[in-house]
């Protein structure tokens, strides 16, 4: 049932605004892919293009070997879950789910008893048994979300597309549904693409994450790939936090001012560069040859994490440093920081 989705150099403009500028992406059958990016990056446009709700100006979308350009929305067999679910308010839950199967042309339509059987199977799958007769306005946000998913699955879609699936839910429900969706995907195995602006959601759920920025894909890869080996400064800053240091690379060492701060560089990129360091990769140390001196200016607590803001001479922005549990610097204390890991990008 599941198909591969191939996106080839898609371009799309709205009025004078280029929403997508040459996007290509290969999605394997049964894969769960997240389109991640800030608002305005084109991720929802890309999803709607795959669905056929928008037409590309250039490029094509293939399902397996079939060019979708010639397929009607019905022939595409897309399961689309809208951001605000778009449940039919005047129909109860069962009729909402049965809408797709009942919309098939006469000769391919299942009998009414088969449709009803399918509806109760789906209700069981999304754990909403007993709510068939409720109307959407009588359901909680999480329940609506699951009805929308059941309705999309009812047409036995070849591809499942979800637009900000958890965007309208509160934090607790979101966490629960995330795990549940992952599990559901494991069981049904649909090729699934979902859009999100929440990096945590994307990294936790998806097999692969495609990071979009300004109408282009910056990087595609597994959660570990994109987080640990960001391909561009944008990806590095967008995924998690990162301190940015202007450095100069000479040989295998990076210098901040005239002080060497990172060694063992194998990429052959001499000259000016930006060094991105995540807060957890800065450590307060005693004397070491590669260290950055600074003054603790602020201490914060964010859930389980303790964080120090350290001012470094020659740098406007204070560095965020995650503190190990046994380390307890005082405000005003002078410390030395060692960079345990960083990402270097040639200065633009």
């Amino acid at each position: 049932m599941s198909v591969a989705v191939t996106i080839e150099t898609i371009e799309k403009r709205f009025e004078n605004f280029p929403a997508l500028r040459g996007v290509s992406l290969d999605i394997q059958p049964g894969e769960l892919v997240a389109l991640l990016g800030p608002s305005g990056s084109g991720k929802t446009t890309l999803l709607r293009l795959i669905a056929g709700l928008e037409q590309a100006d250039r490029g094509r979308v293939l399902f397996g070997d079939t060019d979708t350009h010639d397929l009607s929305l019905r022939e595409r067999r897309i399961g689309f879950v809208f951001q605000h679910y778009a449940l039919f308010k005047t129909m109860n839950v069962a009729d909402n789910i049965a809408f797709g199967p009942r919309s098939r042309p006469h000769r391919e339509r299942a009998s009414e008893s088969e449709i009803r059987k399918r509806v109760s199977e789906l209700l069981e799958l999304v754990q909403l048994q007993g709510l068939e007769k409720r109307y959407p306005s009588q359901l909680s946000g999480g329940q609506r979300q699951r009805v929308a998913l059941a309705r999309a699955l009812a047409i036995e879609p070849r591809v499942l597309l979800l637009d900000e699936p958890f965007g309208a839910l509160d934090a607790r429900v979101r966490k629960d549904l995330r795990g549940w969706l992952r599990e559901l995907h494991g069981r049904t195995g649909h090729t699934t693409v979902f859009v999100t602006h929440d990096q945590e959601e994307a990294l936790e759920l998806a097999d692969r994450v495609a990071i979009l920025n300004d109408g282009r894909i910056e990087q595609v890869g597994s959660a570990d790939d994109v987080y640990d080996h960001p391909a561009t400064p944008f990806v590095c800053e967008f995924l998690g936090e990162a301190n940015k240091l202007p450095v100069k690379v000479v040989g295998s060492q990076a210098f901040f001012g005239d002080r060497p701060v990172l060694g063992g560089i194998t990429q052959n990129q001499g000259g000016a560069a930006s060094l991105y360091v995540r807060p957890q990769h800065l450590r307060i140390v005693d004397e070491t040859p590669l260290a950055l001196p600074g003054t603790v200016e602020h201490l914060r607590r964010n859930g389980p994490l303790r964080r120090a803001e350290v001012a470094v001479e020659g740098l406007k922005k204070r560095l965020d440093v995650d503190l190990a549990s046994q380390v307890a610097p005082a405000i005003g204390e002078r410390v030395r920081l060692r960079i345990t890991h960083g990402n270097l990008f040639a200065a633009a």
Partner: protein
Amino acid sequence: MSDATAPFVPAASVRRSSARGESVGVRIALIAVSLVFLLLFLALPLASVFVEAGAKGWEAYRAAITEPDAQAAIRLTLLVAAIAVPFNIVVGIAAAWAIAKFEFRGKNLLISLIDLPFSVSPVISGLVFVLLFGAQGYFGPWLQAHDIKIIFALPALILATIFVTFPFVARELIPHMQSLGTADEEAALTLGASPWRVFFRVTLPNVKWSLFYGVLLCNARAMGEFGAVAVVSGKIRGLTNTMPLHIEILYNEYMGAAAFAVASLLAGLALVTLVLKTFLEWRFGDEIAASRRH
């Protein structure tokens, strides 16, 4: 600033009835003004219609409304409404759909044009049809040559009524459809529904209450319209007189009781409309509220 730093004043000392802060006196005054106005300008005249209608007794009332000219006027009014209202439903839905679901050039112009019948005097609405189709009008000679009668005949009555009552359905539907957006329709399409099925199973049920209000108002106005219809009707008794025109003629001929008898029928239709609307709001209130929520 002084308010913010002033010591806390106990609520009881200021006699405020609500958080919004208007005093009890202001509230009573506002309610009284609205009630007195409604009584003086609506209830009293309406009651007088029914009192006058019954002034000469039941027999006179019956005679006034069973008289052949009155019967003809009632039939004509119902016929005009029966044609104009369905026409305006179809065109109103089409216009509302176009405005709410599509982006196109000239959309604002279309919205203003829909309001036009509300903003011009009904007399003018009637006159334009005389100008177009009357004996001296643009199409007059051609129509005469082909023996087609529009002015001073049923077609003009229907045209004038359609023109005057057009905005009701569209005006009710446009804001509602706009607030609903297009996601429901897109969802139905991705689920494989044909455009007709999307319209009849998703779009129309979503706006059915707005549509119903629009139709009620449209119908009330179609039956009650006077100005535009008066210009194009020619007031031929038994032929082109609608109920409002018939009432005016009776009144001008000093047949007050008969005029009020027919008027009470017309007012009765309006009251039925109102009662129906209130009943439906009471009976299906939750559903109406739900259909307006997202």
